[in-house]
């Protein structure tokens, strides 16, 4: 157990992966000489050399496709798409090649690919650099999607992702990079299940990614008001850990889903649907969503804050559910 930052946890995970798996290599923009956009891969070019820490030109479609091809060819590539904003340029390769390849070939080829990308807003980077597209990836059969919302997950998700014989997309959150906390020394994260981050009895606050700290903060606040909230970190966005989701909701009989993506069609919608399909008769009130406002994320701080989920909004939504303003 040691105290490290989320960034450091990502770094350790990456170093570990490259050290343990000789077929693994890191490929992406500025992962090498620059030291990684967020300094996650700093020093690794020197340690592992340019074949295993491969800087690429600005060619998201191309180098992601190359990662896919290399995976099919027997390597274990870790493709870093600098931010999810740029992943749109690579989406065709991810969907039409990586995700479909095994099924469409009748099971002849697997694609043991890991894509790491960073997601979310909150740093005043404005509309084009503040996207959250987790839900889009989580829509596609054939890939696994995980989101690291904790230091433990930042440290422990990459290795099992690398062991997965099929494509895994790992979401990382710059908004959390400087967060510090205890990290167990031997981390074996189960990338198949959600995790209860706080036990509670009256309402389930269900979230993932950068909204987790805000949600935990909201839970604290609620506790002070005498409302006992459970916090569930989804962690696996595809396939959703429906059992954990339903277990929590069946227990608390109320749910607020917190999601930094835009409300309409964000991941929260799917969570709502699962709750309704699986626990309708267990509910005391309709589940609610706290999502981003449906606007491009603005640069100005006060506007950005207003556009994103915040602890205050989560608290208010939970209060409404528990105290019951009716429908």
């Amino acid at each position: 157990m040691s105290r490290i930052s989320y960034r450091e946890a990502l770094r350790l995970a990456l170093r570990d992966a490259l050290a343990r798996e000789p077929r693994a290599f890191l490929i992406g923009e500025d992962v090498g000489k620059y030291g990684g956009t967020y300094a996650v891969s700093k020093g690794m070019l020197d340690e592992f050399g340019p074949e295993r820490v491969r800087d690429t030109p600005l060619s998201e479609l191309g180098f992601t496709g190359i990662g896919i091809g290399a995976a099919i060819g027997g390597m274990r590539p870790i493709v870093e798409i600098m931010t999810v904003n740029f992943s749109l340029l690579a989406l065709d390769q991810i969907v039409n090649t990586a995700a479909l390849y095994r099924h469409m070939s009748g099971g002849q080829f697997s694609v043991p690919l890991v894509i790491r990308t960073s997601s979310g807003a909150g740093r005043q980077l404005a509309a084009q650099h503040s996207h959250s597209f987790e839900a889009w990836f989580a829509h596609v059969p054939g890939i696994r999607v995980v989101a690291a919302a904790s230091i433990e997950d930042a440290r422990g998700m990459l290795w099992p992702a690398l062991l997965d014989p099929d494509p895994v997309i790992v979401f990382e959150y710059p908004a959390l990079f400087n967060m510090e906390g205890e990290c167990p020394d031997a981390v074996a994260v189960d990338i198949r299940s959600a995790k209860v981050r706080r036990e509670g009895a009256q309402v389930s606050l269900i979230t993932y990614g950068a909204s987790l700290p805000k949600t935990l903060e909201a839970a604290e606040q609620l506790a002070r008001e005498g409302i006992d909230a459970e916090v569930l970190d989804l962690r696996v966005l595809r396939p959703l850990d429906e059992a954990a989701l339903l277990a929590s909701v069946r227990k608390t009989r109320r749910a607020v889903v917190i999601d930094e993506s835009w409300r309409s069609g964000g991941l929260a919608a799917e969570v709502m649907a699962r709750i309704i399909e699986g626990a309708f008769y267990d509910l005391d009130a309709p589940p609610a969503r706290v999502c981003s406002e449906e606007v491009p994320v603005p640069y100005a701080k006060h506007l950005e804050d207003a556009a994103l989920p915040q602890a205050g909004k989560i608290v208010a939504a939970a209060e409404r559910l528990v105290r019951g303003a009716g429908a």
Partner: protein
Amino acid sequence: MIAPPPSGPVPYAEELALGLLADMLRVRRLEEKSAELYGAGKIRGFLHLYVGEEAVAAGAIRALEPQDNVVATYREHAHALLRGMPMGAIMAEMYGKQEGCSRGRGGSMHLFDASTRLYGGNAIVGGGLPLAAGLALADRLRQRAGRVTACFFGEGAVAEGAFHESMNLAALWRLPVLFCCENNLYAMGTALERSESQTDLCVKAAAFGVHAIKADGMDVVAVHEAAARGRAQVAAGDRPCFIEFLTYRFRAHSMFDPELYRDKAEVAQWKTRGPIHTYSARLKAQGMLTEERFLEIERAAQEEVAQAVAFAEAGTWEPVADLARDLHTPEGQ
């Protein structure tokens, strides 16, 4: 103004010389039968035939080694067949039977075969280009010297960003990719000069610092020579190579194409350069082929087609319960 038909003696020993002819005939007969079966409703979805372009796959694939990888497009029956996939597996795939190479999930556009290193069949134009570069990168990293990845694509793909990115990355990293551009002058109904500001595709490729070769894609000898040269260069480990095969498709783009965009006269003129009849005429002229031998090869091809159809007909449907099979790799595989 199209060039005169390919002519002159074929510089090969009989086995290769007649092998190339047989390859082209096998493809032609397969394609013709596929068209017929499409009409009969046995084959569905999109079907893109290679009639007229046989010399390209025949000449190029004979220049590859067994350890090489092949990446192709949706117009890939020829590549699959000549790479060694049994015709029955192709036909069964087009029937949608589980005896098909892709268990009937892919159909005509998605022929895959791990055993002959055929990495598909891709219905996204340009989609195979980064994949090919990635396979080549894996070979480089795993130090599999002497393996080349041949990537076939139409000239239409050259306008896609995927072409640009893949060429640059392959050239920059000196990956062993043989880029085989099947320039049949049209992308669906769009003629090359309406899709490229620079219609000499070798000029475009050369701008990446890649060696670029132009070859008459209607002449199986020219194709084979160019492909052998290109493959050797790539295998020598230096950098990728680009070959433009100038060819022409005699039939519509797909079974839905009314062919409004080109004259019958143009097609007729190109047919005078047809790769099979010009080649067999050359072989005959130099005394390497008799009419009898030709008919023998022809009959063998027809026999193979008949057996492939019988195989497909006898095939079975994948149970609906298996729908999600192969979505993920089973544990321990």
